[in-house]
């Protein structure tokens, strides 16, 4: 089934169907699966144990996606290829059709590119990182499966294929997080990730049923078209369907309170964390919201649903950022940072900022992958995840250090790095859509972001080394991807400076906007420098305070990290009142607030999860032991046991003595005769 390209609203972009590369884009989706099979069956015989195939598939994808990316710059592409896999009901041409295929449009091209770019670099990095580790072959097979599932997801023209990719990603994440499954913590973390996502998937599946059956078609093109036309049946389910889809997105994109799986997911090897938390998996939820954006944008029910989504995004971005302040594990810092940044994206999309959310997704993919890989490089060198075992590494690991700093600055939103532009756009969206209060929370979040990243950099790279052995810079296989990721972390922001277009090639806004249904989000004409100043001030303040606390007097940083913060003399002398403010803020944010959130997270949310898990098991025991074995089964056993004991009692009559039987006859006969005599 092909969907006609209809300009449903004025302003819908003119689209072309693209050429060879759009027509055969499915090859990108299939390549990782081919690689998976090749790795499983041939991998062990090769020099790099199968990584060759994984990298080859990703390289092919990157070339392909880059070509599409460039083509999409000059002409917006829309192309769908569909293959029917099931068709239910053949009469009247009103069959319910399930299809697999691929869609090539602005959004999916951007995702193809990000997945391939980050994926390729992570794969190359992993060759170095996993050298000599256990089950390397299987690791690369799982990575390929992971990337492939993600491509199936983002290339999906309909909700059904999206669900297939969606849970495929979940499966691959289970395999990868639990890569060291000999330890129970790791397999439990893997289970937790899969299970939390499975809970959220109920929302996705039910949402898909609601929206799909409302119009009798599961394809995004049809749903979005119907939404843009304000189709009545879709409107009727838009609120419930929209919220259910969002619930699904909350799981994958780790929105509060379903974020709990993500920090635990750090149990996997670091390249997995980089892939999972930068370009793939966690972006799936944001992608889903963007893919079905017209449902939320054009329908009354969808708009109502958004009013519930924005606060969740805001809570996530702020509360989870605070958690990053108290983590000692460097990967956990990055994990909470990821959750917080996902909160930004979700807030943006929910507030109506289609482009803003996607742009942050785009830039975040680069610098977060960079940060994770940098952290991995450090972990590889010191054999510990804890920052209390690190320190002073900037001299030993200069390349890792510099790239990590670039990533941190980008994440902190410092001009002119990528993070500045994307975060600024989110603030602008919140401002324009009338969410001023939430905008201030987002600015406060920017402060927290800058602060915890400075802390991480200071604890890891400054001061003196507190671990064991002598750390060395990682091999080129690992540092080259770092450098390669640092480049877009710096420059990706220029792709979407408001008002700046690259000749006839448009900018990021027009590229991801190249879709059948126009995205009616607001695009500012130029950067709002007031807003930018707020964001920059927050970020700069965060870095400054962080630096003063941890970087300045590097040797005692650890002591201060445990809150025995002495009065900061230099600061006090120069800017007296600011110090008090800062200490109070820091003390509060790092102290009660963060601890409280941490406590809620550990005891309440995790407690609920564990409690529910335990409760369900108890219920299971009751149902089985009480109801099934002692109830229903007992009843059926009782019936047969009853027959059994009745037989036992009656067989006493069978004495085996002939004369007793004869006595029975005679007495019986006499009774009969008597009866006849009496009743006649």
């Amino acid at each position, binding site marked *: 089934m092909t969907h006609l390209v209809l300009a449903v609203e004025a302003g819908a972009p003119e689209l072309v169907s693209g050429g060879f590369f759009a027509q055969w884009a499915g090859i990108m989706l299939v390549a990782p699966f081919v690689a998976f099979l090749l790795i499983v069956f041939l991998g062990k015989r090769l020099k790099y144990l199968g990584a060759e195939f994984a990298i080859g598939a990703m390289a092919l994808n990157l070339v392909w996606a880059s070509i599409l990316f460039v083509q999409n710059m000059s002409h917006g592409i829309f192309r769908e290829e569909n293959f*029917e*896999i*099931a*068709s*239910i*009901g*053949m*009469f009247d041409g*009103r*069959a*319910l059709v399930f299809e697999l295929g691929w869609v090539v449009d602005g959004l999916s091209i951007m995702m193809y590119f990000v997945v391939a770019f980050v994926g390729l670099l992570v794969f190359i990095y992993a060759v170095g990182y996993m050298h000599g580790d256990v089950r390397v072959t299987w690791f690369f097979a799982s990575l390929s499966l992971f990337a492939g599932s993600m491509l199936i997801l983002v290339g999906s023209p309909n909700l059904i294929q999206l*669900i*297939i990719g*969606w*849970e*495929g990603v979940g*499966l691959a994440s*289970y395999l990868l997080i639990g890569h060291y*499954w*000999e330890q*129970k913590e790791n*397999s*439990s973390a893997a*289970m937790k990730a*899969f*299970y939390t996502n*499975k809970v959220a998937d*109920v929302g996705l*599946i*039910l949402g898909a*049923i*609601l929206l799909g*059956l*409302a*119009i*009798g*078609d599961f394809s995004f093109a049809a749903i979005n078209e*119907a939404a843009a*036309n304000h*189709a009545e*049946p879709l409107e009727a389910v838009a609120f419930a369907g929209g919220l259910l889809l969002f619930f699904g997105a909350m799981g994958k994109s780790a929105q509060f309170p379903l974020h709990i799986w993500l920090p635990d997911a750090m149990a996997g090897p670091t390249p997995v964390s980089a892939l999972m938390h930068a370009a793939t998996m966690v972006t799936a939820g944001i992608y889903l919201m963007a893919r079905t954006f017209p449902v939320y944008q054009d329908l009354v029910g969808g708009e109502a649903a958004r009013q519930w989504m924005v606060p969740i995004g805001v809570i996530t971005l702020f509360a989870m950022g605070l958690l990053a302040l108290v983590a000692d594990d460097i990967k956990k810092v990055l994990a909470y940072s990821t959750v917080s940044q996902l909160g930004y994206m979700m807030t943006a999309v929910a507030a109506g900022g289609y482009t803003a959310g996607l742009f942050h997704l785009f830039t975040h993919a680069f610098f977060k992958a960079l940060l994770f890989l940098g952290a991995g490089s450090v972990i590889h060198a010191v054999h510990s995840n804890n920052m209390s075992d690190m320190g002073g590494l900037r001299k030993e690991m200069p390349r890792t250090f510099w790239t990590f700093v670039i990533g941190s600055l980008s994440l902190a939103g410092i001009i002119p790095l990528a993070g500045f532009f994307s975060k600024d756009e989110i603030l602008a969206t919140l401002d324009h859509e009338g969410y001023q209060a939430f905008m201030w929370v987002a600015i406060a979040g920017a402060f927290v972001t800058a602060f915890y990243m400075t802390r991480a950099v200071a604890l890891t790279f400054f001061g003196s080394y507190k671990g064991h052995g002598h750390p060395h810079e990682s091999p080129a296989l690992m540092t080259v991807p770092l450098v390669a990721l640092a480049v877009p972390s710096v420059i990706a922001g220029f792709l979407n400076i408001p008002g700046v277009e690259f000749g006839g090639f448009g900018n990021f806004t027009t590229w991801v906007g190249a879709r059948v249904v126009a995205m009616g989000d607001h695009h500012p004409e130029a950067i709002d420098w007031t807003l930018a100043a707020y964001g920059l001030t927050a970020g700069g303040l965060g870095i400054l305070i962080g630096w003063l606390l941890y970087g300045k007097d590097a040797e005692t940083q650890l002591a201060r990290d445990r809150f025995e913060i002495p009065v900061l003399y230099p600061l006090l002398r120069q800017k007296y009142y600011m110090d008090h403010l800062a200490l109070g803020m820091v003390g509060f944010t790092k102290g009660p607030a963060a601890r409280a959130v941490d406590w809620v997270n550990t005891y309440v949310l995790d407690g609920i999860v564990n409690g529910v*898990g335990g409760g*369900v*098991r108890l*219920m*299971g*025991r009751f*149902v*089985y*032991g009480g*109801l*099934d074995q002692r109830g*229903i*089964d007992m009843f*059926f*056993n*009782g019936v*047969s*046991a009853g027959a*059994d004991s009745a037989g036992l009692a009656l067989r006493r009559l069978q004495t085996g003595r002939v004369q007793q039987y004869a006595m029975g006859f005679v007495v019986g006969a006499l009774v009969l005769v008597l009866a006849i005599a009496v009743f006649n």
Partner: protein
Amino acid sequence: MELFESGWGLTLIVFLPLVGALVNMAIPKTNETAVKQWSLFVAVVTFALSLLLVVNFDYGAGDRFQFEMNETWISAIGANFHLGVDGISLPLLVLSTFVMVLAIIYSWDHWEEPHNPRGFLSLMLILATGMNGTFLALDLVLFFIFFEVVLLPMYFMIGIWGDKSKRRIPGFSKEVETRLYASIKFFLFTLFGSAFMLLGFLALYFKSGDFGPRTFDIPELIELGTSGAFSGTFAFLVFGAMFLGFAVKVPMWPFHTWLPDAHTAAPTVGSVLLAAILLKLGSYAFIRISIPILPQEAENWAPAIAVLSVIGIIYGSLACLAQTDMKRLIAFSSVGHMGFVMLGISTLTDVGINAAIIGMVAHGLITGLLFFLAGSMSHRYHTREMSRLGGNQKLMPVMGAILAFTAFASLGLPGLAGFWGEFMSLLGAYNPLESLRAEYLGLFRTAMVLGAIGTVLTAGYMLWMLQKVNLGEPGEEWVGHEFHDADRYELTAWVPLMVLIVVIGFYPNVVFGATTDAVVSLVNTAFGEGAATTAAVTDVLGS
């Protein structure tokens, strides 16, 4: 093809295994290789015949019975030897012949004590006749006979080759041998249901006399039924009687308690056949007999069936979480999965019934494979207690990987076969048959939500089992043991199942291609023209 057009093809598919079993008896007991080869040959030929059937089947007319054979059989009561295949029975028949081949390949090297391959294989072949016959029979008497024929071989399989341990059963004074308890329970339970089922059949037979010659013929009864011949209390009771018979076989909650015992006690191949095919006889009978002959009553009973199904889903999953025995866990998982199948049927829509059929096929493949694995593992570890297992992935990587694959398939991972049955039965429950919507829409939608929650619970126990059995370090007691990973017989039996699970997962048309027409026409004849299409889709854009 001439063989099929004449109707003899189907007869051959049904009776070839029986002939094979008889010939087996003529081969000396000591000549095991000959027995095995002959049995495998018979099974392969049967499978090949069913594949020929697949090739020759007219998919454009999947709603008709094809390759029919209709001969007078017992003229005194008007029972005919009537066989035929349509789109609904075709996938199940192929599943049956296919799994039989794999089961024989698997048992090549895996014999339970007492060692008697001839007896065991002969019983399997007799079982094949019963199963194939049930899927093809179009006459109630014939159907009943095949339905019952299945019982005996399974009874002997469990009773002779089953679990020899003894255990205490609540309500019994002495310890009972597990295999005896399980086999007798299985037999009596099913017989109990069958008695009512026979009563229902007889009632239909006598009632049909009011409208012409009395008949046991299913297509004729369908014609009578859809024209409204059976109604009122009579129809209500007849449906109830048949419901009892079929529900025990499915099994639906609360008639399921024979199943965990039978599965746990049965020898590996027995559990596989039990799970893969025997359970399908009940749900198939609902689609083939109950719904089209008594459509009015199907509507009356549908809400009750939906409720029982959902209870089965949740209840089965919860019970799984309490198990310590791996095989018993898998057995209980069947209660949940068949709950989805019955939920699909209870919606009475083409979507739901298609979901039920693909659910049956998927469950046959997946749970069959799970039982193969459980059997092979307990064969090696000599225990099925999950607390003692662990680190299986380390001891036997290939088998562990297959177990993980199958567990994910079983929890309904999209892209694998199990997904479609679950997803589509939820889809069906969202919009049940139009006439049910007025009163029961809320009930069915609640059932949908509960069913969706059931999928989460399913994921829970499957992951839990995987963690307990597969992951972690192997226990102390296994250190120093030599474990043989999956051997070539096992792989030959398992790999085709895995391939099919993936193929159906990505291309469900393999099944739907045959079933859709048949189901749509079934729903339309039973509930009026157009019932199927309106049930599938709430509304269409632009209408």
